[in-house]
Each structure stands twice: as C-alpha cells, then as structure tokens.
C-alpha cells in the first residue's frame, strides 16, 4: 500500500516500510531548543552521560522567548544555554544575530525537505511547510536526540487537506488554518499529520509556514506540504545541506480527507480562549481593543510585515491602542528598515521591537493587565497566555490586526477604506 508524506519520510529514515500507529526509532536530521526548553534538555543530556552532541552542525540553540533577557532568572537560563552551546560547539544564535526560532531556521536554510526535525518547542511543526517531518517534543526527548541523533515516533495517521481556488484579498494562510482548527477543534488532529495538496501552488511560502505552524493548535503532530517549485526556489542559495525531497504515493491511505476552497475563505478571528473559537471578522460585533501584536513564529515574516505596512501606511494607530510590531528575525528587521517599513510602523505610532517571542507567551514587551483585550497575529489565545488571567486575546492575520489597530476595535482592512471614504 502507498504511503502518505509523513509515512514516506519516516520510512526513509527507518529504512523500511512503516504504517500509521506503529512505534519506530529513527535518526533525526536536525534538533533545536530555545531558552526555555534547552536548560532542561541540557540536564537530560548530562544525565545520559553524553559528552558530545551527535553532530554540532545539526543542533541549534536559539534564545528567543525571554530575550533580550527580561530579568535575572531568565538571564541565568540563557547563560546555561550559551555556555552549553560554546562547550559543545552547536549552532547558536545570539541576540542581535538571530530571531524567533521558527522564523530563523527556515530563513537560514537549516531545515530541509525530506528531513526529520525535532524541536523542544511545540511549533517545530512549522518546517512542514518545507516538506520536512518536523515535530515538537519536550526537553527529555530533545536531550536524548541531541545526544544520540535519534528519537522514537508513533507514525501518525494522516488527514489530507485538499485545497482549491486562490485566497481572496486580505485573506492569508492564517485564515486557512484558523478555519481548519475551527472545523476540527483543538484536538481534532491529535496524533495525526496534516498533508496539504491540490492548489498548494497558489499559497506563498510565508503563508504555508503560518499554516504548518498552527497545525499543532488542532493537536497535529505535523503539518506537511509536499515540496514544489515555490519551496525549491525559496531554498536555492539558502539550503546548508544537500537534500532529497520526499513525496506521498498516489495510492497513499488517508485516515480522513477535508476539502477547503481558498476562494471562499474570509479573514477569520479566533475569540478567547481557544484557537478553535473562530468566526469571520465581518460577523463579529464591535469589540474594542487595548493592544495589537503583529509578529511571532506564526506571522512575523516578510509577507506579514508587508501586509501590515500596507494597511498602516499613511494611517495612525488609534489613540487608545498600543500597537507592537515584532519582525521575526534580525534580517527581517534590517530589511524592514531598508525598505521603509520601519518608518511606516513608527510614524503610524506603533512600537517596533527587536525579534523576540515576548508578548506571545506573556513574557515581556507587551504583557496584558486585568481586563485588557488584545488582537494578535500569534497562535494561542488560551486564558492568561499574554498576561493576566482576566485578559483576552483574539487571533487574526496581520491585515486584520493592523486594521484593528487603526480602528481601535476589531475590524477588517475593508472597513478601514470604507470609513475613510465616508
């Protein structure tokens, strides 16, 4: 019987045919961890009695969550990571030369089609956009993988998502994945992989990264896009290693199939306190906001910044709103400066921050107080995620977030032009 993309990648690593549901041990191609998960992974690594990481060029440690260090304790965690990275000569991306792990590693060509990537972060699934079987794990798994270059997996069942049509104006990858999470629920894809097919070519790579990023919000192990010309051209001149793309078999067996018409998608909003609590933005009542966050591993990439700037250009952030824009990496920040986006954001009255996860997990750079409401391009709106347990987070794409910043309430870019014409 044919194999799905997830099965095919795992099979190639296991050196034999595999089937959904079975447990296998596989070699991994790349391992990563951040300032929160690495300290524990390092502890595991030492407890295992390991001396060397399996391959220093395939282990990346990225301080991004509470960096630049937000307090003494987070500084101590980062110090553990930095010292380990130096000692074991792993890849390490210091503040000012790095960024948010899941924006950074694809940008640096470090995660590639056909590979198995494990990361001490649930959004490691982002790299599925490039056709890698990439999945988040806890620190013990990561310590073990750093030491041995291998891991255990339960081969996931695959949900095939057949796309058709093209995204309408102001709809983005974010809306596709919010729609799917809304349909399937936050555990609808638990222990499953998504495999996207059909009109994938119409989705820009940055949008695919957003979609794969949030696969875990439906519980999925991975969110996979078979590599195409878009993928290969993105990687040319970027990939740091040779790679062999892997594709699903035409007669693959899928546990479930879902069809999505991209053309029918409208910009969506996930209301508190679940990413599955979605509705089209134009069906929401008027909801005032205190803060807007544009950034994160979900929507902190170039296209996201471009779209936000397009909406904010020549406009100003509502007097009662704080708008925080965070490019995902140093390179993107620099490009935003060079290409005039920085000026658009700053003159609109937004804050432009150095790359960090910061507010996404209620760390710093925009933590919410009691009763405050934020619309954010991040991926989780669990209770208390961005600060006080009585604060609220709405999730949306960068166009909707930027438009809301101007409106002072949740709304779409279309409303903005409408209001100005009136």
């Amino acid at each position, binding site marked *: 019987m044919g194999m799905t993309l997830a099965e095919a990648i795992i099979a190639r690593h296991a050196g034999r045919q595999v089937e959904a549901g079975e447990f296998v041990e596989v070699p991994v191609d790349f391992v990563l961890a951040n300032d929160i*998960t690495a*300290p524990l992974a390092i502890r*595991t690594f030492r407890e295992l009695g390991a001396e060397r990481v399996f391959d220093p060029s395939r282990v990346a440690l990225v301080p991004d969550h509470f960096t630049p260090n937000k307090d003494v304790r987070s500084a101590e965690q980062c110090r553990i990571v930095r010292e380990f990275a130096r000692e074991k000569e792993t890849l390490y991306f210091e503040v000012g030369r790095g960024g948010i792990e899941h924006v950074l590693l694809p940008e640096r060509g470090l995660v590639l089609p056909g590979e198995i990537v494990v990361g001490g972060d649930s959004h490691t699934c982002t790299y599925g956009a490039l056709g890698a079987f990439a999945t988040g794990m806890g*620190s013990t798994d990561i310590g073990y993988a750093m030491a041995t270059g291998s891991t*255990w997996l339960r081969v996931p069942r695959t949900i095939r998502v057949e796309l058709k049509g093209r995204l309408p104006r102001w709809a983005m990858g974010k809306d596709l994945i919010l729609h799917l999470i809304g349909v399937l629920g936050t555990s609808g894809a638990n222990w499953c992989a998504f495999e996207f097919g059909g009109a994938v070519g119409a989705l820009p790579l940055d949008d695919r990264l957003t979609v794969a990023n949030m696969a875990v919000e439906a*519980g999925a192990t991975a969110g996979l896009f078979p590599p195409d010309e878009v993928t290969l051209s993105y990687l040319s001149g970027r990939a740091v290693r040779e790679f062999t793309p892997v594709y699903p078999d035409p007669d693959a067996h899928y546990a479930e199939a879902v069809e999505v018409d991209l053309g029918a998608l409208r910009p969506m909003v996930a209301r508190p306190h679940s990413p599955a609590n979605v509705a089209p933005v134009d069906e929401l009542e008027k909801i005032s906001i205190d803060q807007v966050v544009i950034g994160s591993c979900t929507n902190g990439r170039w296209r996201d910044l471009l779209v936000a700037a397009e909406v904010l250009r020549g406009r100003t952030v509502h007097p009662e709103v704080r708008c925080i824009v965070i490019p995902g990496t140093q390179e993107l920040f620099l490009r935003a400066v060079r290409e005039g986006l920085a000026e658009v954001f700053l003159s609109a009255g937004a804050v432009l921050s150095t790359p960090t996860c910061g507010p996404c997990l209620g760390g710093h750079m925009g933590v919410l107080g009691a009763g405050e409401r934020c619309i954010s391009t991040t991926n989780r709106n669990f209770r208390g995620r961005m600060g006080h347990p009585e604060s609220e987070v709405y999730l949306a794409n960068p166009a909707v977030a930027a438009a809301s910043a101007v409106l002072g309430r949740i709304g779409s870019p279309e409303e903005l032009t409408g209001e100005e014409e009136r």
Partner: protein
Amino acid sequence: MILEGRALVVGDDIDTDAIIPARYLVTTDSAELGRHCLEGLDPRFPERIRPGDILVAGENFGCGSSREHAVLALKGAGVACVVAKSFARIFFRNAVNLGFPVLECPELGEITEGHWISVDLGKGIIADAENGTSFKANPLPPFILEILHAGGLINWARRREDGGQKRDGA
C-alpha cells in the same frame, strides 16, 4: 502498578499555560514549579492539591506548548498520576519520558471530586471505591509501558546501553 488516591477533577482542554503559566518558566525546579501547579486555571488551585492526589481530566489534557515544566509542576505538587479522556500528544510523551503515569480513558464517566479512586495502569482500570463504579481505559502500548517501567526515557536509554542491544521499534 496500582495507584490509589483522592480524585481531583478538572475539565476539558486544560492547556499547558493553565498547568504552569509562562511567567514561572524561569526555573526548572520541580518543587518550585509545583507550588504554582494549575495556577493558570485557578490561582488557589495549588492549595487544593494534596500529595498523592489523582488528577481526573476531560478531553485534550495538556494541549499547547511543549514545556516539560507542566509535568514537573504536577510531579512537584505531588500529583500521583493523571487520568483523562484524552491527552495532547506532546504532554503524553513528556509524561512517559519522565516516568509520570498517565492513563487515557475515552469512556471515562463522572468521577466525584474528593472520592478515593484506584488506577490500575497495567490492566487499564479506573475504579471509584466509594460508589463502586469503574471504567476501562486504553491499555498502554508495550513500547510506552517499557519506558514507564524503566522510570522514564533516561533510565530506559541507560538500561538499554547496559544491555548492549539495539532494538528496532516495538
């Protein structure tokens, strides 16, 4: 392995931010994390936990981030085991890897807060001694049991190394 303890009941979709809010992730100390266990759900929750309690949850327990601190917090608070209708994948892995018993029971019916219950991990039976009800859980796959019995992934790996044998899957 049979565990007995007082039932502590929570609902569906208890995410990792509820189990241990991000502001406490500046430490990896289990006891300290335990003092804030489930604080994201209810600021007074840590006071409700007594060592040996069995946490009974609904669907999708542990969804969200990969933070192993969530398991450490439960362990640190003295929770003996978690029984849920379903677990999010990463949380389940983390629990197994840290040798923390978890049992998935899709058929799990109502369990009364404070009742004395027993959990038979090998047979997959959850029983409420106070009202005589019991529920049958999914038995853990042999591969998972092997790691749990070893006391977690680290011991499992060490033991395997001592045995000098490499095995392929399970």
